[in-house]
């Protein structure tokens, strides 16, 4: 199978998966007792207004009809309007997604770099104090609750050290004096490409704590997986052979063994990406980070079902695509893996 045929088949499969996700989510958000019409008109609304909204939104139709309409619109690219913001859900998502992505991507890059380096080191130094310290570190990353970590980070870097801002995406004064021109929607990136240095350093500083908070769990998971995967790879004959031919330890570890060990690590990176898409919800709330997570949280709290559906489909789509990317990357890394 050519790679394109494979990708096309996987995407077709993904569409099916998304269809299923959309259906299940629709049923779930519509079966719980909540009144979308009441959400739409807001608190303190009169019964007549709610009834009016129910008609306007087509909520008086049978559920399967509503489902049919929703799916038909979805296929046409109309994800419906948020009950709360009244804006098209897709617009809302596209508005909030880049900010979240900036957080998630930097967190995952840091988590991967640190996780892999620590994983390789602990595998190599198995049983030494370095191994012990780093494993304690990774266990911490995996098991410390995000809210507690957030608090600790804020206390350490903000309260005690006065090094980093406690929350938000920019300092008000800096943002007012050096407004960022939105290009990608990711402030750090936008500030960088427009050469807006004061805004760049400011937004980069604001990124650090939420990023670390979000990176902790993936870092721990990636490190563990790298460690066990490396231990396995290091026991292989080709490592002994490479050593017998004078390949230096660093190359052995980071090239010969790591490329072999990276397959499972890629899988967990993919999984933690999916985790981070939802993990960011909480982090964004604590750090007042105006991203998709914040939008999703408020949507869930207000039972804003088109928004909930939109976010769910978005996350599912990202999940499916990341999985595809992981599978392709694995095939790229390991020639023995056949795409099928």
């Amino acid at each position, binding site marked *: 199978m050519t790679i394109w045929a494979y990708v096309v088949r996987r995407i077709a499969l993904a569409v099916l998966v998304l269809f299923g996700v959309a259906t299940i989510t629709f049923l779930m958000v519509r079966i719980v*007792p909540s009144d979308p019409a009441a959400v739409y008109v807001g608190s303190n609304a009169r019964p007549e*207004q709610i009834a009016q909204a129910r008609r306007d939104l087509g909520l008086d139709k049978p559920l399967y009809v509503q489902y049919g309409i929703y799916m038909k619109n979805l296929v046409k690219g109309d994800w419906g309007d948020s009950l709360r913001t009244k804006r098209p859900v897709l617009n809302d998502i596209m*508005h909030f997604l880049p900010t979240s992505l900036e957080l998630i991507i930097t967190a995952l890059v840091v988590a991967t770099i640190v996780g892999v380096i620590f994983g390789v080191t602990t595998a190599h130094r198995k049983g030494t104090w*370095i191994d012990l310290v780093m494993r304690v570190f990774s266990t911490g990353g995996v098991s410390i609750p995000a809210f507690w970590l957030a608090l600790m980070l804020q206390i350490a870097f903000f309260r005690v050290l006065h090094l980093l801002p406690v929350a938000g995406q920019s300092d008000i004064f800096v943002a*007012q004096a050096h407004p960022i021109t939105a290009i990608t929607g990711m402030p750090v990136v936008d500030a960088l490409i427009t050469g807006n240095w004061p805004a760049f350093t400011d937004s980069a500083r604001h990124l650090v704590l939420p990023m670390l908070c979000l990176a902790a769990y993936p870092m721990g998971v990636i490190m563990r997986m790298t460690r066990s995967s490396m231990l396995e790879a290091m026991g292989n004959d080709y490592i002994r052979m490479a050593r017998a031919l004078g390949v230096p330890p660093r190359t052995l570890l980071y090239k010969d063994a790591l490329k072999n060990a990276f397959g499972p690590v890629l899988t967990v990176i993919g999984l933690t990406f999916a985790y981070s898409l939802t993990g960011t919800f909480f982090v964004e709330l604590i750090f007042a980070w105006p991203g998709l997570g914040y939008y999703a949280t408020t949507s869930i*709290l207000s039972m804003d079902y088109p928004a909930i559906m939109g976010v769910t489909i978005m996350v599912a789509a990202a999940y499916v695509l990341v999985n595809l990317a992981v599978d392709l990357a694995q095939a790229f890394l390991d020639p023995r893996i056949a795409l099928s």
Partner: protein
Amino acid sequence: MERWSSRPGRVAITAVLVVTVALLAVVLTAGCGSSNTSGTAPKADILRLAYTSTVTTWDPSASYSTEVVYMANLYEPLLYANPPGSTEPFSPALATSWEVAKDGLSWTFHLRQGVTFHDGTPFNADAVKYSIDRTKKLNLGAAYLWAPVKEVQVVDPYTVKMLLTYPVALDRIAAASSGSWMFSPATAVKSSKWWDAGHEDGTGPWTLQSYKPNQELVFVRNPKWWGTWSDNQYQKIVVEIVAEAGTQQQELEASQIDYAGLVARDQVDALAANPNIDVVKGQSWNSYLMFFNTQHKPLDNVKVRQALSYAVPYQDIITVAANGLGTQSKGPVPVGLWPNTQGTVTQYTTDLTKAKQLLSDAGYPNGGFTLNLTYAAENTLENSFAPVIKESFAKIGVKVNIQKLLWNQQWAKAKGPIAQRQDLFVLLWWPSLPDGYDNLNSMFRPETSPAWNLAYWYNTDFDKLLTEAYGLSAVPSGLEQSQQKYNEAQAMLVDQAPAAYLFDAQFVVAKLKTIALGTEAINPNYPQVLFWTKVTR
């Protein structure tokens, strides 16, 4: 034999070092970065506010939610309702004077001259008619407030006359915190999409400069505002959306913001102890009550409801949940808001002996029944006092099952099939206009299908009394009589106890000492609103 070289360990250390150094570099350079800010407005001219309020709509006709905190600074009503304790109940805004006909059926407003909307369109009688007509026609949000208005007549460019179908206190409606805004007729051609992209067109002192949803809103002075600006007022308002009280607090303590609109009640003392910070507390029209489901046994028995009203630990609730920032309610209308009974109606106290007596009178000598209590998961206060109620009821043998639901689910359940509804419904209520009639009308009038009368308590005597009282309140001469009728009606609510009236909550915000809040900066008639013109350096 080879010992594995120590290099890979060094790789790890080097990598960590590089990351750390990079982070530090960012951190330190930014230390200087923030100090060399230059640009449009000097720092001292910017007021930095942390709010939780997101914008659900920018349409002034439809607005009826958290965005009121912005609307009230962008738009103006015809009248402002003064805070309790003022000599006059209202002060002029876009109307300079007004009068009501003896029958209460026609109101005349004389408009302020020389006022323009932000787009330059002059404000006049046509604009008033346009605003009210459009709001009524869209029938969204608080549009129902204008329901009694049959017609808005343009008498002359600066006089409007409103004809009513039945007499009401229209001044209170004209001063409401939602639905009362005057906006430019030039926006008639705009769609709701245009509004919701972040546009406004009012007459208020502030204009919206930029809007990043869920993130940041920037407002600048309206140079053509009819009021007068003084030097110590701010030039620019930057609002940061910060959902967590803890985060707002930390930002305030770091002087990253000037004002925190959300303060965790258990942090009040800690904040007050900070020498740079003032905690500002005051009256609000927020009140908590708990409906008894009068259609479920045994709550259909008034004695049981009275017993439970005696078993509510009012003071404990205030101490535990509100950290003392509240007072026991005197009926469903908060103290200070018209037409509160002003002490003329006896209220329940916490008295378990009486409660037990009443229960045994009702045929439940040792309680022995179980009640389902629902409250809104989003509300942290309700979260902390629901168990206090449960504990106290347990002492008279009444078991309470607490159900924590998202507000929408709590509400949907209350409106669902009768058998599945809750027994006890905890609600935070605030009126949509400076008139406690809204509380009585919304929560205790008979409804065809339940909306807010979540006691499902339908009493025709009460209904009649309320209608009379409301009608009488339309004209100043009827106010005294109106109050009497209202007192009678509220005495019924206490006696019949369709709900337990828990407490009137105080608002609490915190600010840096470097900013000053004028007396009218916060006004309970405009819940959550900070009037930015009243904030000075």
